[in-house]
């Protein structure tokens, strides 16, 4: 008798499973309501990442092409992977007459970055921040080495070094 009971139970459980998948099939066939995938390159214009999304490290510039980085190299030391290289020079400030560090090039190796955020955490002047861009695909690895400060940009004279 248990032989038939086994068969009956087996068929019952199989039908329960088929009920679930079948329901999704017909719902999706007619309404596409439960479709969870996103049509990726089509929605490229409307796709918006969350504010905290860690896509790449960027350096904020204001409208006068000024940034906040005074080339202190704290981020360079904080980075676990050697992603950041800062090239700086000493220059005489014409107003105050003091020599100070001037950022020439803030090199960011995206190909080595693990998006851990230690540099941004360490930065005392909020010069670098997270960018939400994730379209990093490129045919040449050298394109991933980026210079974060824009050409001709200068240090914001009013910047404050806020210790966190």
């Amino acid at each position, binding site marked *: 008798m248990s032989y038939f009971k086994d068969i009956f139970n087996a068929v019952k*459980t199989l039908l329960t499973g088929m009920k*679930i998948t079948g329901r999704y099939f017909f719902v999706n066939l007619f309404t596409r309501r439960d479709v*969870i995938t996103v049509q990726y390159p089509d929605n490229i214009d409307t796709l918006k990442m*969350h504010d*905290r*999304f*860690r896509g790449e490290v960027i350096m904020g510039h204001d409208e006068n092409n000024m940034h906040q980085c005074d080339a202190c190299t704290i981020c360079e030391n904080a980075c676990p992977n050697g992603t950041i290289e800062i090239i700086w020079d000493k220059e005489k400030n014409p107003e105050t007459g003091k020599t100070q560090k001037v950022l020439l090039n803030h090199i960011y190796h995206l190909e080595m970055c693990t998006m851990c*955020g*230690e540099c941004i955490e360490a930065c005392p002047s909020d010069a670098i921040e997270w960018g939400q861009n994730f379209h990093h695909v490129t045919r040449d690895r050298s394109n991933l080495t980026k210079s974060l400060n824009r050409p001709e940009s200068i240090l914001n004279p009013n910047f404050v070094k806020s210790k966190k």
Partner: protein
Amino acid sequence: MENQMENQEFLADKIRTQEYQLNMGPQHPATHGVMRMILQLDGEEIKNVEPVLGYIHRSIEKMCEKSSYKQIIHLTDRLDYLSSHMNNEAVTLLVENALGIEVNDRIKIIRTIIAELTRMASHQLWWGVMGMDTGALTTFMYAFRDRELINEIMEETCGARLTMNYNIIGGLRYDIHDNFVKRVKEFIVHFKEKLPEYDNLLSNNVIFRKRTEGVGIMTKEQVIAYGMNGPTARASGFECDIRKKLPYSAYGMVDFEEVLRTEGDAFARYKVRIDEMWQSMNIIEQLIDKIPEDDFRMKTKPIIKLPKGDFLQRVETARGDFGVYAMSDGGKNPTRFKFRSPSFANLHGLNKMSENTKIGDLVVNFSTIDVVVPDIDR
């Protein structure tokens, strides 16, 4: 008739059979990554399994010796990437306990909630892959539907979906997002509706039951001897939940059950994880309304140096008992940083589990011990 029988036996002696070796992996769908198993087979029956490791060995322990404690945290994301938050938590707790930093309840509760969300996401992925290993391909997408919601929450609050790196020493990187509580509650409602579907689709399915029940039985003694842990060991009745045994973060404040089963077979290992998802939801439900207003990070020194000595911190990741063992000489970097990974420990039992089973059973067993290969290779 008798004569015939004799003839048959004679024939069976005469046919020359031979055990043979089969390389399963490193590129094999069932090994969940790049791992190789050398199988000694007699027909379909497995005589011996020998895992060959190291295909994604990245010498993280060596890297830790050259990194500061802050930098170590993000490396642990890459061990068991499915329970990255718990791995981070292990390192932060180790440093905090060594330095005597007591974090406030807000941090503890948020850490616990995110850890449980991560655990659920991990178990969901495992469930999907378990289905795929047994041949039911649809489970994968159903699991991902629910996992996607968790990843959304993570992305909104932590900034990344998988390797969140949300813990820092003495607190959290960001405060929780404004939508966090709302979204988590929505997720719980959604998932309570969908989790029975998992049972109906796979757990109760007669084929799945037949594939898992009575397969790869491990007794409690064997589990302890082989040093296995996590849900895999709890299926054999070994009480090894660190959340209960040595409560850390906010696990002392909540009331939950340690899921235990006694059968020790593949289905028990499967069921433990399903039930753990219920328990995770239970924990989150208890905590989600209790997040107190407070700072989300404590004051710490800019350069962290551990006192001289040895430190061990254990946490319960989705795979089991994750231990971080640090040896410090009082400097910025540890002299030895060891990750005792649960997947590596669980791998010890695979050979015993698969003795005299079929190739199909090996896939099931391997799936139910739920290893993450980067966690093994480190």
